[in-house]
């Protein structure tokens, strides 16, 4: 057992922390609001320069060989500074999918992803599917030597900025079957594809795609036909672990902001910090942050597990804890700031919107508790 960062990991942590504090925070919120596609060009270039855009890919593929712990380090720092640029959506999530489905294709793409020239995106979620991963109605049918895709995708992370799109579609099976889901690479200028950018409540820009009988060549199929589900689930679990770490960083910032605010803010003839109920609430927020940090680590480390069910249990348990900590810490940070906490004038209000979205992204606490339940709980202690 050893929780220590290696020297390289410690350097990465310092570098990302500096990068984030130089460029993000309230300033990052403003620059993100000015983009059309959700990517702040200068910051994205900065990430490329630091090696962050190639970080999660194997060195032989031209990446930097970072693993889940490095992702955890990056995402915690991103959370602390409220980074809205879509690193998870544009790099990590589609990268994890390709890495599992078609490593050769990934190797081709990595050099341009690492320089920032290519932004990837995975278009999977469909309207009304809620968190049911296998809920894919978009269909792909063989047509001569190729494929034709029709359907709608929503809330596509990095979807507005992406210049390489990977789209899930059903090639067999019924509406929510796990079998029969395939992944296709769809050129952004394919006839019949339209995309619309819009903002989410956390300030991220996402896209909705409409595929109206989009024609694709045979080589557009990524991996084996109808066999994408487990890679998809692994990729989503990878992204879930990442946003767990982001939640830790974001709640930590909210905690510190709240403590500072209470020490400064004068009311009824003294600083708010003299009220014991507020001090104790901050102590409870601290516990919430630390418990989330423990489980975010657990999630990161679990991504390497051979046993798929063990991984799923760990990810779901971590998401339950991080969602609950984000909820408790975020709501109390806002409460203790009072009026100013519910405006967009302080970073805390923006972070609260983000942690509120993180609670629900890739499945809310209820969804993950239900998944943990189906898998018999931790250590399968409640299984048959």
């Amino acid at each position: 057992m050893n929780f220590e960062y290696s020297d390289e990991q410690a350097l990465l942590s310092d570098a990302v922390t500096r990068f984030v504090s130089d460029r993000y925070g309230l300033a990052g919120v403003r620059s993100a609001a000015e983009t059309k596609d959700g990517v702040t060009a200068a910051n994205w270039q900065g990430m490329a320069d630091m090696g962050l855009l190639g970080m999660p890919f194997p060195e032989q593929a031209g990446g930097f060989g970072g693993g889940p712990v490095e992702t955890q380090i990056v995402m915690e720092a991103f959370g602390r500074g409220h980074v809205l640029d879509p690193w998870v959506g544009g790099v990590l999530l589609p990268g994890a999918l390709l890495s599992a489905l078609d490593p050769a294709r990934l190797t081709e793409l990595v050099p341009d992803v690492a320089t920032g020239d290519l932004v990837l995106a995975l278009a999977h979620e469909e309207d009304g599917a809620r968190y049911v991963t296998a809920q894919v109605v978009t269909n792909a049918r063989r047509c001569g030597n190729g494929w034709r895709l029709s359907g709608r995708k929503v809330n596509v992370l990095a979807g507005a900025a992406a210049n390489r799109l990977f789209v899930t579609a059903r090639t067999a099976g019924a509406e929510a079957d796990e079998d029969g889901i395939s992944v296709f690479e769809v050129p952004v200028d394919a006839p019949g594809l339209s995309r619309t950018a819009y903002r989410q409540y956390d300030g991220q820009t996402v896209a909705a795609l409409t595929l109206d009988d989009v024609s694709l060549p045979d080589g557009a199929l990524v991996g084996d036909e109808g066999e994408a589900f487990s890679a998809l689930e692994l990729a989503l679990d990878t992204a879930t672990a990442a946003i767990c770490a982001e939640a830790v960083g974001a709640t930590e910032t909210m905690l510190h902001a709240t403590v500072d605010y209470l020490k400064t803010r004068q009311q009824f003839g003294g600083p708010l910090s003299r009220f014991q109920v507020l001090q104790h609430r901050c102590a409870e927020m601290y516990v919430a942050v630390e418990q989330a940090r423990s489980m975010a680590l657990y999630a990161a480390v679990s991504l390497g597990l051979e046993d798929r069910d063990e991984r799923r249990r760990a990810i779901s348990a971590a998401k339950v804890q991080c969602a609950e900590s984000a909820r408790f810490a975020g709501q109390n940070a806002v409460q203790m700031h009072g009026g100013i906490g519910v405006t967009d004038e302080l970073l805390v209000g923006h972070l609260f919107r983000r942690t509120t979205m993180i609670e629900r992204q890739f499945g809310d606490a209820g969804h993950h508790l239900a998944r943990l339940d189906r898998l018999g709980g931790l250590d399968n202690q409640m299984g048959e």
Partner: protein
Amino acid sequence: MELSFSPDELAFRAEVRAFIRDNLPEDIRAFAHRSGYYKADQVRRWQKILDSRGWAAGHWPVEFGGPGWTAVQRYIFNEELLRAPAPEPLSFNINMVGPVIYTFGTEEQKSRFLPKIRSLDWWFCQGFSEPGAGSDLAALKTSAVTDGDSYVINGQKIWTSTAQHADWMFALVRTDPKAPKKQMGISFLLIDMNTPGIDVRPIVTIDGEHHTNEVFFDNVRVPAENLIGEENKGWDYAKFLLGSERTGIARVGLSKGRMDRALELARVAPVYGGARLIEDPGFRQRALKLQVELKALEISALRIIDRQRRNPSDKPDAASSILKLRGAETQQASAELLADAAGPSAAPFFDFREMFSDNEVPQGVARADGAMRVHFAARPATIYGGASEVQKNIIAKAILGFKDKP
């Protein structure tokens, strides 16, 4: 002892329900259902409809246009509006400034203001809070200096909700900066929002909306005839205003309406294995617990109304702090349940202000667009109108007799 409504009360409830069903304009109903929100013109239109029915001001004396309802009828009326949902009569007008004017105003003030307050021809906002004062209202600094027949106002108000729509403000201003206690030396003024020197600047809240404002006063002249009651007695009128008509503050109907909507969404939202969210054990447990809390809160509200009916008193009833405290919590819990039921469909930001006209959300992306907004908008419920921490202080002091200042 009879917890159920009497036949008369049930008949009244049916009458209110039917009236809302038949008279609430369809666009208001649809917009509220979609967003949990009303536009200013919708509030105005509906208030006029209520006023023409004589229902604009439930607890006002009949002589000023009140309908002569019992406390229970008023409770029923408010709950039905909240659950429908339909806009409530604007609290600033009906619950706040109206009663101050008919209690402390001159005859001229009564006849000039009350009809237009009731009909919402004149929309009032509240100028109490100031930056730096927080929950310590009496620390206000905005000054009013007598100059001939006028006061000249300088200073700043904050958290002035709906100031962008308002025709008038009722404000607390400092007329005697040398008074021995900060509560003395404050006066209660009505200020025409069209007066030169007033600058209203928006504050955007975490739901992404523009509800509230900062208001700046730069040598704003207010006729002395707009003073309510006596100069330097404004704090008394403010206390009267804040203590009045608190039995509706649990807003159980609002929470029930959100629960209705959450269950409606949960009946169609899929979960793993082909089931619907309403069958999910965790979701059901939360919904059931919230139902129990709401039922308890509703009975607690009725118990307090009933006690006030039997023992009328001018003083605010500290027990109604339960209603504010638990009411705000259940409003938040029901909003959260709604947001959870909506799931990812609630993620897209819908800009009701239409400030970012380029943030166009494609039709059909989300079927529960108002849910996240309602969740965010519910957060201040435990902050404004006496934060939850303040309500607990009140219970600790006024009911449990703790004397130590915490």
